[in-house]
């Protein structure tokens, strides 16, 4: 495994801190958060990344695969640097979520679920994110962008073009 395929000392320290939040022998409870760190660091969770996490936490690789494939926030395939995740559920739908998705599709020249050729953006419609009163909305990295309009989306995409947030759910 080359160096970029391992955690930095800061990340390893964070893993130790997370493990220490649970009783002796219950380090498996740290898995979900450590996978977030791994995804932020490696870009997505391929087999190599998952095996690495398994070794870190002294788990069987299968225990990691099971979890990584269950939760919707984990990507086991490559995605863009910035994931634009638009909420499509009821309250957002009636405030124009579908139009918003079409607008972004047109603007970026991709379909829902796809990634731009430059590898910068992935568009994904997702289920309720807990911002129903501030609809329509999307999540990018750790940020919620609410009360969206086409103008706001334009500005947002410009902003992310200039500064793609790769640090998704990683160290702060």
């Amino acid at each position, binding site marked *: 495994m080359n160096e970029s395929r391992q955690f930095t000392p800061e990340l390893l320290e964070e893993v130790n801190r997370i493990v220490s*939040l649970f*009783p002796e022998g*219950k380090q*498996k*409870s*740290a*898995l*979900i*958060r450590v*996978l*977030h760190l791994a995804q932020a660091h490696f870009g997505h969770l391929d087999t190599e990344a998952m095996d690495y996490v398994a070794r870190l936490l002294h*788990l069987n690789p299968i*225990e990691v695969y*099971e*979890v990584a494939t*269950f*939760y*919707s*926030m*984990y990507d086991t395939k490559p995605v863009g640097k910035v994931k634009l995740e638009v909420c*499509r*559920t*009821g*309250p957002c*739908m*009636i405030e124009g979520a579908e139009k918003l998705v079409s607008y972004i599709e047109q603007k970026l020249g991709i379909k829902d679920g796809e990634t731009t050729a430059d590898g910068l953006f992935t568009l994904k419609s*997702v*289920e*309720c*994110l*807990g*911002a*129903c*009163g*501030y*609809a329509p909305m999307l*999540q990018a990295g*750790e*940020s*919620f962008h609410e009360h969206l309009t086409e103008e706001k989306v334009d500005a947002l995409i410009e902003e992310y073009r200039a500064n793609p947030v790769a640090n998704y*759910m990683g160290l*702060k």
Partner: protein
Amino acid sequence: MSKKLLLEHIDVEGIRSYEVYRKQGGYQAVEKALKTLSPDDLVEEVKKSGLRGRGGAGFPTGMKWSFLAKPDGVPRHLLCNADESEPGTFKDRYLMEKIPHLLIEGMILSSYALGANQSYIYIRGEYMFVMRIVEQAIAEAYANGWLGKNIMGSGFDLDLAITPGAGAYICGEETALIESLEGKRGNPRMKPPFPAVKGLWQRPTVVNNVETIAAVVPIVNHGGDAYAAIGIGRSTGTKLISASGNINKPGVYEIELGLPVEEFIYSEEYCGGIKNGKRLKALIPGGSSVPVLPHYLVCKTAAGEDRLMSYESLADGGFATGSMLGSGGFIVYDEDQCMVRNTWNFSRFYHHESCGQCSPCREGTGWMEKVLHRLEEGHGTMEDIDLLWDIQRKIEGNTICPLGDAAAWPVAAAIRHFREEFEWHVRQPKLCLERNYGLVTEKKFEAQPA
């Protein structure tokens, strides 16, 4: 005792920080409890308060606490459910984001009452930015001696941590939450054994919603009796309502239970009425899982009484003419909204979120989504409507966890109250794509031969 118990200080500048929270009387409830109340006294106060779970089911909190098994030498755990993924619900996020120390104070009190020395807040992964706020607040609480060993010299030890999920509505179900906290897939467990006996790491465990735990703070500050004096009947205290949909002022409101629904929707203090001068068509009062009410059952019950924001009044009439307070996810629909489309949208949600363990849920939710989509796109038949009714009936009550019911109820209620609109989709497949049926009672688009 003021009517705002949780959000009383929400507008105080800097209330997110420890210093400001403390200055506003924060952590006084912990001082009071550790100095003057035994854990059993505290459970008694919560019983007296009449507090009911704010996560959706409304189970009396004091009673739940008294069920916790206490075998010698086995640690017990309190888990706070901050998974908040029920469509229409965003109040826990609001509370944690704005006033995180209120939750931490509630966690200390509740852990003390239960004799738990290691407690966790399980937060949905998408709320990572909220998690960082709470984590910061937990660090402040440690630094000021409210967490850790021998808190305030009382001999009570408590370690508290927050830990994220990674995108799965099902992890809000308490046994799925426990599985997830153990670092596994969020598959609900068969009950019994109940978490109160075998929960996290097979130890006795209590799971409570964020708002439930926060409510313990005013209960300790003012006393259980004073809390019970607020509200109406068995709906005591206040409730956070997440208001969304076609209203002028969406957002999170703290209401005294018993407030008339009409006042909540139309008064300037709360939702400020329907947007753009439109008329009300339907209401989902408690999150996507509860039955939808047609406009004529929103402000009045079938018996002609004022409909109130309370567990009992919202459920008045059972599922025939009532609904549920649920999580307080209050979704308002105006006359331009399509009930078939909305029902399809929610069915897609439940299909997406089914963990797949039970066939009625896994297959049934997918089937309902498909049939609803067909109807919505104008390719449905009258038999499809009956088929939908049949599928939802076969899911309800036949699954390991209540997600199956949660998927079935909205479909049942939509057909029950908006059958004409479903039929209109079959009769007028072209029109239904262009516009919506309008209010049910108007018969605006009287049936025409197809």
